């Protein structure tokens, strides 16, 4: 299988070429979690996860809410 390298939350990861944002969420076991995603510093709305294909070299940030003041 062809792979591509994507940086996720500061860690480099190999993903199958053509993987979508939705695939990534599934691969990470984060399905159903309340989170938000940014790709190359641009917000990716949840509604676009199934259609948005990641590309080699993308920088992905996945965030959630934690305690803070």
């Amino acid at each position, binding site marked *: 299988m062809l792979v591509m390298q994507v940086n996720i939350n500061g860690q480099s990861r190999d993903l199958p070429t053509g993987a979508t944002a939705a695939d990534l969420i599934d691969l*990470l076991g984060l399905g159903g979690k309340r*989170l938000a995603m940014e790709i190359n*510093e641009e*917000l990716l709305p949840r509604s676009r996860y199934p259609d948005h294909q990641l590309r080699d070299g993308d920088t992905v940030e996945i*965030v959630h*809410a934690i*305690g*803070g*003041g």
Partner: protein
Amino acid sequence: MSTAATELNADTGDLLQVGNRRFTSRLLIGTGKYRDLEETGRAVEASGAEVVTVAIRRTNIGQNPDEPNLLDVVPPDRYTILPNTAGCYSAKDAVRTCRLARELLDGHNLVKLEVLGDEKTLFPDITETLVAAEQLIADGFEVMVYTSDDPLIAKRLEEMGCVSVMPLAAPIGSGLGIQNRYNILEIVENAAVPIIVDAGVGTASDATIAMELGCDGVLMNTAIAAAREPLLMASAMRKAIEAGREAYRAGRMPRRRYASASSPLDGTIF
């Protein structure tokens, strides 16, 4: 909430209004620094707060995906979640964080903007704060903004369209109490939006002083979380805020230099 005082405030319509949102409680609290999520939830409960701040951070990748979530103990259908931009040192990072937060919270557009300028004091970077506020307001956010206790900047942030201006009492997490009450008073007297003291409160009397000065609310985190008994302090803060607000509304007696007897002088037996 069920105390008589809270009911009295609700009955008299003495509500905190931020944008179009109305709150009975004037105590806003943070969710950081607690021992665990259970303590966080219980402290929020004990404080009576309706507005609760959260931070936005990277999700742990590859670790237990079933770990409990903060929003399970402070559910967004029960509390008004106020995501902050803590840790941001530039307008750009603050705006990115707010956009992520809005997505995370299904379009909820209320945010606490803080752009820090210095790690030692955590004082706000005002020029970056102004840039971020402008961009966020243009992007449809309702911005509650952490700022210094500078009356001119507070007014400017209000005029830009921030829904609440939140001057610090003292550095974040310092617990020093209000360092310049004349500045806070000046900000309050000139304001047309709610003024909420954010940061620097150490104990109940600090919160009461803020409310007696006419502040519309107080936002705190460490004062509760770092108390020896956080739940007890959460309760103390709820009362302190209510007491200060009622004293402000009641209007204190004038100060006088010499005594004035409380018992009548007529009818004494000597």
